[in-house]
């Protein structure tokens, strides 16, 4: 039951993220010089096991500000994420982990 609640809560969150990501993109695109934090591809260990879960995560990462999922390792344990702005790896990974935790509430 709780899951469904989380799922329902998730939809506005998703939408919000989408808006936010577009905002970020717009800012980046329209900034005169690209003098922001450098981009990078970061590997993130994921705990989600089901395909649907991974799909949702990938989906979410792609739609969230500044991140884009690139590849999934063959054993489905690692997700490689491209980010426009990576300050440092640790903080970035924790951001993604936060997302994943949100998903874990209603997915496996």
């Amino acid at each position, binding site marked *: 039951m709780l899951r469904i609640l989380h799922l329902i809560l998730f939809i506005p969150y998703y939408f919000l993220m*989408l808006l936010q990501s577009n905002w970020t*993109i717009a800012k980046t695109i*329209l900034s005169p010089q*690209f003098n922001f934090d450098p*981009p*990078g*591809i970061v590997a993130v260990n994921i705990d989600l096991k089901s395909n649907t879960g991974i799909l949702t995560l*990938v989906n979410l990462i792609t739609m969230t500000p500044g991140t884009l999922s*690139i*590849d999934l390792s063959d054993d489905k344990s690692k997700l490689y994420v491209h980010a426009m702005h990576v300050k440092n790896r640790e903080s970035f990974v924790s951001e993604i982990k936060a997302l994943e935790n949100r998903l874990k509430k209603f997915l496996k």
Partner: protein
Amino acid sequence: MEIVIIILLAIGSLLMLLGAIGLNRFPDIFMRMHAATKAPSLGALLMLMAFAFYFSDMETSIKAIVIIVFIFLTTPIASHAIAATAHRLKVKKWDKMEIDDLERDRKKN
């Protein structure tokens, strides 16, 4: 209602334009993909909403929703496919990019 539709359409189209600009401005394929996935998806979403509002009948709305769901399902997968391919093909990356775990892991194997 009309105003809402117009606003939706306008934002949607501007987002598309934004994406197009980004596609041209960004230095490497991965950055461009950010521009090419997020902005048009939202733009399409908004414009489809406008379309559904404009006709505001059941059939159109259902179809619009189906399309939106579909777009949001497929866009990440498609971009995922292209990005993986691009990376595998070793297309040129932006000089500023330092961290590349994917390449590191692949070399390891």
